[in-house]
């Protein structure tokens, strides 16, 4: 052990080290940047403008990459050790202005400096996503980010169908489909993940097949279950973002509480007849569902399950607002619906926006939360048909 410690101490004495700020200034002045990490580390992101030469290939490749031996060269690795050895090697090769970044890429990222994802899209992917690669807000780095993202769709029904199809088409790499129902012919008027041929099969099976047929890049994870307090934490754990397209209050509150406790963003949507709501709940950045609606509408006052009726195209509009917000959140682009409730009235053709604020008295995200673990809410869909006076 002391042998290595002595060696690195001696090497660091022979080279020049710079901190992130000095490296940034050198790069701004035109310094060459050499990333000496391994390929898998490089693939997870690197300093913009860097060339990748893993340390084992440095002697062979550096002269092609950096021809001017008097040029300023910033070498970096993950933490600053490999790049120290690399700097000494470069000095031995005759490079006179080599510096090693102290703390490496880790410190660079920590300091909030820009990073890029390497272009490792296949030729097929470049064609498939070409129209969104051309959008500067996405580009190759954004597309890589989407391909690495994991989104859970709670509900593979009216909202989950359009959201799932478009997120899959956009290349979100992992899509969890959660639903415990089987496809019924009455679903097909709006649940476009499913087809006549899938009537009677689980929605997860049917939806997964549709998504795989649309885009083989997507890893579809089937969760053929009903969320409850016993499984929700495990189910949501692997996901970056949750799209709430469920059709009952029990699941809405359960998903909300679990997401607040694990600091995950929920893309909320809900529909009723010809009216929809959407917003984004990001813990720490805005309110949660309980801040907005501390209590569910009692079932006798809320015939809000699908038996209550819904215009078939409405979930298309609301589900796509959710898909759009999901992509923005994953890409870190634009102004999300955090703190804003968007409502859409299809009959009136009107969109309205309301301010949503975090409630300091909220039971789960307030200043003195009383909900510290998930619990099940007793709420069942109980629909009493009532006359509908409007012309639908």
């Amino acid at each position, binding site marked *: 052990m002391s042998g290595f410690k002595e060696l690195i101490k001696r090497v660091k004495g022979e080279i020049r080290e710079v901190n992130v700020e000095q490296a940034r200034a050198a790069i701004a002045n035109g310094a060459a940047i050499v990333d000496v990490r391994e390929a898998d580390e490089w693939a997870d992101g690197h300093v913009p403008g860097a060339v990748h030469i893993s340390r084992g290939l440095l002697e062979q490749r550096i002269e092609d990459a950096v021809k001017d031996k008097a040029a300023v060269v910033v070498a970096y690795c993950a933490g600053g050790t490999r790049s120290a050895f690399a700097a000494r090697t470069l000095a031995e090769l005759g490079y006179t202005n080599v510096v090693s970044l102290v703390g490496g890429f880790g410190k660079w990222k920590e300091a909030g400096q820009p990073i890029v994802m390497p272009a490792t899209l296949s030729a097929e992917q470049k064609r498939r996503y070409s129209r969104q690669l051309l959008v500067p807000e996405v580009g190759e780095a954004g597309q890589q980010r989407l391909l690495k993202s994991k989104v859970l769709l709670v*509900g593979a*029904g*009216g*909202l*989950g169908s359009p959201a799932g199809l478009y997120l899959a088409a956009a290349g979100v790499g992992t899509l969890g489909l959660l639903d415990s129902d089987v496809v019924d012919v009455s679903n097909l008027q709006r649940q476009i993940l499913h087809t006549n041929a899938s009537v009677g099969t689980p929605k997860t099976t049917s939806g997964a097949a549709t998504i795989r047929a649309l885009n083989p890049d997507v890893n579809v994870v089937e969760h053929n279950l009903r969320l409850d307090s016993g499984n929700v934490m495990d189910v949501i754990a692997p996901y970056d973002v949750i799209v*709430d*397209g*469920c*059709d*009952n*209050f029990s699941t*809405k509150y359960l998903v909300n509480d679990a997401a607040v406790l694990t600091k995950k963003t929920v893309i909320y*949507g*809900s*529909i*009723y*007849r*010809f*009216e929809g*709501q959407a917003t984004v709940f990001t813990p720490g950045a805005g309110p949660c569902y309980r801040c*907005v*609606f*501390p*209590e*569910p*509408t*009692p079932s006798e*006052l*809320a015939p*809000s*399950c*699908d038996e*209550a009726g*819904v215009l078939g195209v409405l*979930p298309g509009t609301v589900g796509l607002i959710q898909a759009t917000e999901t992509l923005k959140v994953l890409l870190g682009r634009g102004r999300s619906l955090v703190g804003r*409730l968007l*409502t859409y*009235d299809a*009959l*009136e053709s009107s969109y*309205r*926006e*309301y*301010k*949503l*604020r975090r*409630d300091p008295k909220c039971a789960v995200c307030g200043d003195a939360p009383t909900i510290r673990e998930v619990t099940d809410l007793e709420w069942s869909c109980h629909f009493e048909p*009532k*006359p*509908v*006076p*409007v012309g639908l």
Partner: protein
Amino acid sequence: MAIEVQLPSQLRPFVGGAAKVSVEATSVGGLIEALATQHAGLRDRLLEPSGELRRFVRIFVNEEDIRFLQDEKTALKAGDTVAIVPAIAGG
């Protein structure tokens, strides 16, 4: 003065199907009371038996939640728009 009230789908049957109604009121509390008096059935939807606003119904005045204004005491002036937005759970 007349205040415009935007109604959600669930409440439209109680006002003959209209998406909005006009109500004479100078405060949110007065407006809810006037609505509940004029349209049979709305009282039960908006107010607890105790007379408090139901917790699954949000009232916004010009896009701001009355809980972050002065609740039912929030004053209304000509040109204000009040919106009633209930929790819905269809998917």
